[in-house]
């Protein structure tokens, strides 16, 4: 173990107030003039107008992903509900009425984003890559508590500025015929029962 004793000695100049004042003034005015004249060191970001680039791995609001044909990927296996430390995912499973290739789908898939601690364990637990946190939605702020209860369709209908999906604001296909590779233009139908 290498030990280093810190030097408590403040030196000759450290015995007087004036050098401290001058040193402080020098450092402070360097910042002052550099920022005043060239705006060089300012680090503030004008938040709502300018947004900081966030990391690729950032765990933002969840979204539910879809298959290529527009059907929801989630098979209601309850793994995410099981692992969630905050108990904020609520799933009800039902038989998939439209797509016969899968058995179950979530008829209800709620995430209470107020309880969620954004730990990302649900994403890790999902065996279907059905839930992700890559929406890049960093701030969730509403004046109404109920708005934080994200239902399945809200989680599917990603925010318009979301770059990670091509299914923005497209409802789930309601029959296997509608489940085309590009399912745009499908008639909306309320699937939350």
């Amino acid at each position, binding site marked *: 173990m290498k030990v280093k004793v810190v030097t408590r000695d403040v030196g000759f100049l450290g015995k007087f*107030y*004036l050098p*401290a*004042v001058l040193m*402080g*003034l020098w*450092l*402070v*005015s360097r*910042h*002052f003039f550099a*920022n*005043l004249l060239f705006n060089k*060191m*300012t*680090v*503030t970001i*004008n938040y709502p107008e300018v947004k900081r680039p966030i990391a690729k791995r950032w765990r933002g609001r969840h979204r539910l992903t879809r298959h290529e044909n527009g059907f929801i990927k989630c098979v209601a296996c309850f793994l995410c509900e099981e692992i969630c430390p905050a108990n904020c995912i609520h799933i009800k499973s039902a038989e998939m009425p439209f797509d016969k290739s899968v058995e179950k789908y979530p008829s209800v898939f709620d995430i209470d984003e107020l309880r969620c601690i954004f730990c990302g364990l649900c994403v890790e637990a999902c065996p279907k890559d059905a839930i992700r946190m890559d929406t890049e939605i960093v701030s969730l702020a509403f004046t109404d508590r109920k708005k934080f209860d994200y239902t399945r369709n809200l989680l599917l209908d990603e925010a318009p500025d979301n770059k990670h999906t091509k299914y923005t604001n497209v409802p789930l296909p309601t029959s296997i015929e509608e489940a085309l590779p590009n399912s745009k233009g499908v008639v909306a139908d309320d699937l939350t029962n």
Partner: protein
Amino acid sequence: MLELLINPYIQTILKVIFLIFLVVLPSAALLTLMERKWSALIQDRRGPGRANIGKFTFLGIFHILADGMKLALKEDFYPAGTNRFLFTIAPYFGFFSAVTLFALLPITSPLGNFTFQIVDVNIGILMILAYMSFSIYGAVLAGWSTDNKYGMLGAVRASAQMISYEVFLGVSLLGLLVVYNSLRISDIVAGQNEYWFNGLIPKWGILTQPIGFLIFFTAILAEMKRAPFDAPEGESEIVAGFFIEYSGMRFALFFLAEYISLVGMAMLISTLFLGSYHFPWLLDAGFKLGSLPLVELPQWLVVFLRFITFGGKVLFCCWLIISIRWSLPRFKFDQIMKLGWNRLMPLGILNLIITILVTLLF
């Protein structure tokens, strides 16, 4: 009409109105914003800039309005156990002492018969010191009348600190009085437009009295309770000290008084030590450097240039005081006292003795 304007009393009243509404209040209000902006620049931030009217923010100037409105609309609040009378009057002491200072300081040289100074009394410096001590009452009464323990601690600290530093303030000025040989402000100002070495180096206070200047500057900071001497209100120890219970307009008075006195003190420093409104080598008739020929200037231009000079000096002093605040940590209370009595006091007396000796010998 014109006779009225020549009447000295009317003139004085006009000057007071001009001074309060066009110099004191706007500059203090601007300074509140400037302190925030400047500190932001120092700390690599942007500072306030969101308050807007329509699309215009003008570097955040509307924050002054917004802050003022917020304070004015706040509830008029008396905490339980308050002595209402003292609680109400306490903020006015500081305000009064801050504002009166402006009456005694000239802002530029006279234009003809018209002086840019409200009164020029022959005991000017004494009056300044006397008015300054008024603000102590404000702090003490405010702290005591709120019936708050933090307030009480702040008041005790404030009174001890301000009373002691008044002493050093006086001591530091003694040397200056010896040099310029007068208590009258205008004499001191005139004395600073004299030159050494055949018109090369101006006899400014900071050059004739460098040590006096340092002591005076320190004492002024302590007198204003500004950082690093803000132990009476040190927010991490005694929360806000003597004005802890104040809110709304009464708090605004304290706040405004602080900035008015900041401007006032900056003016005082410039007047006494930085050559007042004098620009080096700008004489009444025009520029004259050493033995070079005189460049003649009309009187109004000289007066105007001097006004600008004075403004620049005051701005510089404000900047200095604010920068010092943002560069230094706060003194502990006993260190303030030690600094005063152990260092400034002997230094001041030494300075006085040296000054007297030098004045007598040369």
